C-alpha cells in the first residue's frame, strides 16, 4: 500500500507541466535518435546530458529516461524500413522485420514493434515498481565489501557474457578505471596521474568527455565508414483498416510477448548486460519455443514481437540496479548514473530514503513515457519515415556540433574538448580492432565508487581479501563474479576436450 502512495506522489511530480512536457519531448527525440541508423539510446543520452543542466535533477532524469525509452521504440523503425538496426538493441528486430517489410508488410512489422514495445515496457515497469523498493531496503545494509563485490560482478558480466575478445575487454575495463583515477588521490588528496604535467589533468576526467568522445565522435566516424552509400527504404502502406487488422493478428503472439518481457527484464537487471543481449536472447527463445521455427527469419511477426518487447523490458530492468544499488545495468544507465553525480545526488539505496521525489517521479514518468511513446510512434509513423530520409551528410555534422558543445559544457574547459576528440578518434580506431568500448565507459563511472570501497575494505580487513569471500552477501556475489570471469576459460577447455574427442 505504501508503494501505491509513493507512486501516486510520483505521478503528481511526473504530471507537472514542465516534467510532462519533457517526457513528450524526450520520447520524440528518443524515437528520432533511435530511428537514425547508428544512433541509439546511449548516444542520445550521452550527447544530450549536458543540455539538462538547465532544469532540476528530477526533470533532467525524467527527460533522459524518456529519451532512453523512445530510442527503444525508435530502433525498430530503421531495422524494419532500411534493414539497418537503428541501434544495437534493435539488431534482432531486423531478422524478421526486414523480410516482412520486403514482402510488403512493413506496416505490420512497425505496429507489431510498437505494440510489443509497449507491452514489454508496461510489464517491466510494473515489475520495477514492485521490486525496486524491496531491493533498495536490502541494499541499505550494504557496506564497502558488498559494494566492491557488486562492481566486480558488473565487470565480470562483461568478461563472461559480453562475447568480445577477453584480453581486450579486460583492457577496456582497466583503462576506464585508470582514467577515473586521474587528478588526485581521493583519500590523501595528493595529485595523481597528471599526464605530461598538463594542468587539465590535475582534476578528474569527466566521464562525459569519454562518453561523448566514444558514443558521439567515435560512433559517427564508425557509421560514416560502415554505411557506405545510402540504403534503400521499403514502402509502408498505412490505413486505419490495416492497422486494426494488424492489431487483431498481434493478439495471437501474446505468449511470446509475455516470455520476452520477463526475460528482457531479468537480463536487463544483470549488471552491465542491458537491452542488446536481452533482445537477442528473447529472439532465440521465441524461435526455440515456436511451433514452426522454420518461419523465423522469413517474416514471422513473433520474431519482431520478441526482441522489441524484450529490449524495452530490459531498459527498465537496467534501471533497477542503477537506482537501488548504484550499479548501472547497461551503458546508457552508466551515463545516467554519472549524470546523477553531476546533479549532486549520491546514487545508491539511500536515494529511496533521501530523494523520494526524484525516485518516484522517475518511476511514474516511465509509465507516462511508455504510453506517449506508443501513441506518438503509431500516430506519427509517416513523419518518422520522412525523417529517416534526412541525408547523413546533414545529420552527421549536426551531431559533431552537439558533441563539441556537449563536451565543453560539463567542465567549460578547452582541454576537455581536445581530450574528447582524442577519445573519439582513439575509440574509433580501437573499435576497428574489436576492442569493446562500453566497458571503459562503465568503468570511468564506477571507478570513483570502486576505488574507495576497495581501499576501505582492505583497511578494515587489514589487507586481507578473505572477507570478500566469507561475508554473507559479499561472498556469493564475489564467487559468482569469479565464475563469470572464468566462464570463457571453462568454455575454451570444454571445446578443446570436445574437439579432441571428435578428431580421435
Amino acid at each position, binding site marked *: 500500500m505504501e508503494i501505491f502512495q509513493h507512486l501516486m506522489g510520483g505521478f503528481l511530480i511526473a504530471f507537472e507541466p514542465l516534467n510532462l512536457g519533457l517526457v513528450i519531448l524526450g520520447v520524440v527525440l528518443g524515437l528520432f535518435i533511435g530511428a537514425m541508423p547508428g544512433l541509439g539510446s546511449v548516444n542520445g543520452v550521452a550527447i544530450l546530458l549536458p543540455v539538462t543542466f538547465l532544469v532540476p535533477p528530477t526533470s533532467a532524469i525524467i527527460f533522459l529516461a524518456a529519451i532512453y525509452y523512445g530510442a527503444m521504440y525508435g530502433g525498430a523503425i530503421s531495422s524494419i524500413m532500411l534493414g539497418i538496426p537503428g541501434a544495437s538493441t534493435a539488431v534482432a528486430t531486423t531478422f524478421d522485420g526486414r523480410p516482412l517489410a520486403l514482402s510488403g508488410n512493413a506496416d505490420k512489422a512497425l505496429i507489431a514493434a510498437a505494440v510489443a514495445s509497449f507491452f514489454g515496457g508496461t510489464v517491466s515497469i510494473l515489475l520495477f515498481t514492485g521490486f525496486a523498493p524491496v531491493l533498495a531496503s536490502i541494499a541499505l545494509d550494504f557496506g564497502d565489501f558488498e559494494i566492491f563485490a557488486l562492481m566486480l560482478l558488473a565487470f565480470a558480466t562483461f568478461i563472461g557474457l559480453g562475447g568480445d575478445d577477453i584480453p581486450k575487454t579486460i583492457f577496456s575495463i582497466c583503462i576506464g578505471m585508470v582514467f577515473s*583515477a586521474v587528478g588526485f*588521490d581521493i583519500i590523501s588528496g595528493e595529485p*595523481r596521474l597528471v599526464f605530461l604535467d598538463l594542468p587539465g589533468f590535475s582534476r578528474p576526467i569527466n566521464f562525459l568527455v569519454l562518453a561523448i568522445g566514444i558514443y558521439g565522435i567515435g560512433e559517427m566516424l564508425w557509421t560514416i565508414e560502415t554505411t557506405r552509400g545510402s540504403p534503400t527504404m521499403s514502402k509502408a502502406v498505412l490505413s486505419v483498416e490495416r492497422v486494426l487488422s494488424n492489431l487483431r493478428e498481434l493478439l495471437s503472439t501474446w505468449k511470446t510477448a509475455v516470455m520476452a518481457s520477463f526475460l528482457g527484464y531479468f537480463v536487463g537487471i544483470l549488471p552491465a548486460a542491458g537491452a542488446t543481449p536481452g533482445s537477442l536472447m528473447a529472439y532465440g527463445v521465441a524461435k526455440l519455443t515456436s511451433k514452426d521455427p522454420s518461419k523465423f527469419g522469413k517474416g514471422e511477426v513473433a520474431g519482431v514481437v520478441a526482441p522489441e518487447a524484450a529490449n524495452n523490458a530490459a531498459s527498465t530492468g537496467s534501471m533497477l540496479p542503477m537506482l537501488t544499488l548504484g550499479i548501472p545495468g547497461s551503458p546508457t544507465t552508466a551515463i545516467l548514473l554519472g549524470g546523477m553525480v553531476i546533479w549532486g545526488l549520491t546514487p545508491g539505496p539511500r536515494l529511496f530514503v533521501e530523494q523520494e521525489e526524484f525516485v518516484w517521479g522517475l518511476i511514474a514518468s516511465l509509465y507516462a513515457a511508455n504510453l506517449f511513446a506508443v501513441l506518438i510512434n503509431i500516430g506519427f509513423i509517416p513523419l518518422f519515415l520522412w525523417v529517416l530520409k534526412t541525408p547523413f551528410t546533414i545529420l552527421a555534422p549536426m551531431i559533431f556540433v552537439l558533441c563539441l558543445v556537449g563536451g565543453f559544457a560539463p567542465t567549460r574547459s578547452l582541454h576537455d574538448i581536445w581530450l574528447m576528440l582524442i577519445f573519439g578518434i582513439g575509440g*574509433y580506431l580501437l573499435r576497428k580492432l*574489436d576492442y569493446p568500448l562500453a566497458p571503459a565507459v562503465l568503468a570511468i563511472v564506477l571507478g570513483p565508487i570502486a576505488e574507495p570501497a576497495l581501499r576501505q575494505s582492505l583497511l578494515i580487513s587489514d589487507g586481507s581479501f578473505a572477507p570478500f569471500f566469507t561475508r554473507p552477501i559479499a561472498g556469493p556475489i564475489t564467487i559468482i563474479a569469479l565464475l563469470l570471469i572464468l566462464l570463457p576459460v571453462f568454455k575454451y577447455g570444454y571445446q578443446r576436450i570436445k574437439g579432441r574427442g571428435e578428431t580421435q
Partner: protein
Amino acid sequence: MRRAELVTAVVLAALSIYFMWKSAELEIGWIEDEGPGGGAWPFWLAAIMLACCGWTIVNWIRRTTPASDSDLPFMDGYARKMFLLVGGGVTAMVALVHIVGMYGSLLVFLIYYIRFLGQHSWVTTLTIALITPVATFFFFDIAMTMDLPKGYLEPLFLPLYAIFL
C-alpha cells in the same frame, strides 16, 4: 589488419607502462594504518592492462583472433579518405575554437561539411550553418548563462549581451 593489431597492442602496452610509471609517483605499497597507498589502484590496473596487451600479442602470434588472422587492410581507400576528411574536419573545428570561438568554428565546420563533403545546395548549407550557432547561442549563453568561448570574435557579441542579458 594483422599489422595494425600488433602495432596497437605494442602502443597500448607502452601506454600501460607509462601509466604504471606515473602511478608509482605515489606510494603503491601498503601504508601502515592507512591501507593501500594512493598509487596502488591505478598501478595495478595499469599492470593488468599491460598483461592484457601481452595476451593480445600471444593471440596475434597464434593467429587466434579475427583481426590477427585477417589480410584485409586496416583501412581501405574509402575509409582512409573519409577518416581524413571527417576526422580532420572535426580536429580543425576544435582547433578553430581557440581562434574564432565556438560559434565561429561551428559555422565554418557546418559549411565545410554540408556544402563540400555533402554537396548540398548553398541554400540548405547556409540555412543550417546560420541557424545552428544562433540557436546554440540562445540556449547556452542566454538560457543557461554559460559563457562559451568566443575567441577573437568576442567584441561582436557585446551588443547581444547588452540586449539579452
